[in-house]
């Protein structure tokens, strides 16, 4: 085992253990403490009290949904940062979030009480529009796509605000997406998220070398035989679909897709074969931890998870950044 493989192994194992630990602790905490024994016997179907079963299944759905959503957002953020070669880019760069908010609010406004399909359609629509705007010579231009994303996002969020202001109906439904929330997660979400995230992870683990090449710059990549335009389009389409799904279902979860990839890069270095699983795992850890704090700090009151993500992720990122700079 050479040095690189060994360090890769250590990093991934440590992150996996941390992820398992975060999930394990989160499952225990909530309005009522569930001991590991209770959790285990409930999962094995050995509890007769139905309310405990219900609690376990609800908490399982919430915790795992938060974890997997964090994984997806972080990995998308990483991919976007690689594609655009820009560290300020996050998972919402293509206007996905504004699209989801707009689509969902439009559905509610039209009297459709189940806004998730509308939100997903809105997210996909926004991304498609951005990608069309970014098209150039059969491929994708970084600058045009970035600008397109900014414009599409701004237009759609303005449209959402317009809907909200001119709306005399229930405002809470509309505000939902801007807060980010896992309280409605169900066991179906776990399965859907699990499939989405695993496919997402495997595709890009498989493509990790091409991603490394992309980091060398457009000319280098082309000279090494990579069809840069097409490759960018594939990456963006796949991750946009994944992010659309997460945003439409759980609302805006800012910061995870920006900061988690950076933290992963500081831990694992620039090579994608380690970076991808690290970002994936760290995004999950960050979101699941934030989500747990958000729902337990003021029981029975809940606070928007986004606040905790920033309060937790920000200082941690600064600490890592400071250490890295100090070492150099």
């Amino acid at each position, binding site marked *: 085992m050479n040095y690189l493989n060994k360090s890769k192994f250590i990093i991934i194992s440590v992150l996996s253990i941390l992820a398992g630990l975060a999930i394990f602790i989160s499952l225990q905490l909530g309005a009522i403490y569930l001991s590991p024994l209770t959790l285990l016997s409930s999962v094995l179907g050995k509890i007769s009290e139905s309310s405990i079963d219900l*609690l376990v299944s*609800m908490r399982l759905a919430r915790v795992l949904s938060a974890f997997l959503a964090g994984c997806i957002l972080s990995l998308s953020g990483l991919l976007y940062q690689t594609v655009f070669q820009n560290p300020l880019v996050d998972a919402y760069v293509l206007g996905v979030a504004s699209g989801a908010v707009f689509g969902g609010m439009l559905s509610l406004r039209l009297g459709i009480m189940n806004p998730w399909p509308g939100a997903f359609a809105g997210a996909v629509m926004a991304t498609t529009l951005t990608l069309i705007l970014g098209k150039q010579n059969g491929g994708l231009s970084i600058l045009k796509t970035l600008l397109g994303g900014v414009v599409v996002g701004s237009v759609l969020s303005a449209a959402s605000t317009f809907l909200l202001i001119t709306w005399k109906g229930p405002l*809470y*439904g509309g505000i939902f997406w801007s807060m980010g929330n896992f309280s409605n997660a169900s066991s179906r979400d776990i399965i859907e998220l699990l499939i989405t995230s695993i496919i997402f992870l495997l595709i890009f683990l498989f493509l990790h070398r091409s991603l490394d090449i992309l980091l060398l710059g457009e000319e280098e990549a082309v000279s090494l035989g990579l069809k840069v335009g097409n490759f960018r389009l594939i990456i963006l389409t796949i991750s946009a679909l994944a992010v659309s799904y997460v945003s439409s279902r759980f609302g805006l979860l800012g910061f995870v897709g920006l900061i988690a990839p950076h933290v992963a890069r500081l831990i694992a270095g620039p090579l994608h074969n380690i970076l991808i699983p690290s970002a994936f795992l760290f995004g999950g850890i960050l979101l699941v931890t934030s989500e747990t704090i958000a729902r337990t700090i003021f029981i029975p009151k809940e606070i928007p998870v986004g606040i905790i993500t920033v309060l937790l992720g920000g200082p941690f990122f600064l600490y890592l950044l400071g250490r890295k700079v100090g070492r150099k």
Partner: protein
Amino acid sequence: MVSKVVQAKVRHLLALLLLVSLFISTTYGSISVKIIDDIGRSVEVKLPVERVISIQPSATEIIFALGAQKKLVGRTDFCDYPEGVKSIPSIGGVSNPSPDKIISLRPNVIFTSTMFPKAMAEPLMKAYPLIVLEPNHMMVVYDNIFTVGKLLQKQTEADDIIASMDALRRPIEAYFQSYLHKPTVLILVWHDPLITVGPTSFIASVVEKGGGKNYIQKDIGAYPMISPESLILNEPDIILYPTKSMGIDPAFLNQTPFKDLKVVKNRKVYPFDDDLLFRPGPRVIQGMLEVSKAIDPSLKTTSIYALSTVKQIVFKDGNRLSNIQKLKNLNGRIHVGQETIITITKNQVNQIKIVNQSTASILLNDGNMLSIPLKEGLFPLRLVVDALKGKIFWNNQHKEVYIFIK
């Protein structure tokens, strides 16, 4: 020389003018009232108030209930009650009204809520008295009706509204006093995320006055977002969900966590008109009644009478009906004349016959006949109500009788 005389005359005239204007300003300036509003600000309002802007649906409803709508020159897009409100120009939303519109309407006073943005309120406050009506308790709604009535010179009307609200609130309080276990009521503001009302919201006080116990007792904010887990852990006895402005699709009851709750399985979930319960105006008493009816469904088919022995007035369901006929306290028991008995028993009684000076027979709609002993030709109220399976309460503090009867 001539010019000097003219100058002097002009000076005299100016002095006179100044004196007159001073006189006018003192006469009008002296009639002003100081109001302490719901966020503790002291606001001076010059009387008479002729032009009012309401930036709050509940204030609009108070003004209409007082019969002062002629003075209302501006309202919000959300003010949709009562009927005549549409003819009054709107100044925009509750949280984003147009300041230009407000200024162009030249108000003498502005009623608003804490939803009104501070940045917009500050410059307006310097020019116009701005009164924030944001009650944190149902009884403060009473105070607000009184304040608005005072400012719009509708004190008598304000007293009438409060009297008719009391004619429902006090009977309901008396009715539920005997409940040893007050059911916990979860008022949904929104179902996903789960938002309800905390003890600092006036809505919680309406729930308590209506005979329930608000689901959230800990002070965690007026409209807290709460965890669905706590619902399972600590189930409410009753759930109420809004159907009007904040309308929620009842389909949420088929989803987790609601579908597994005992309260849902036992069908103790009721829709309510949130325009009644969520607006701190005169109709809040109807909102309170919706809570009471959810707690005790028998109230849905019951009429509530309040008899004020001091003012000698009968109220039915909060509406002033008539004066009490021949009210008399005989041996500590309240006796009334035949007409008042007819008023109260209208739904159940077919005919009342006075047999002789000391007996009356009451023929019920179901064919049964009751024989009632009279005293001095008057009917003993409690006996009649008991015979008709109604409930009767005596409020010693206000000297009032409350009757719940089908």
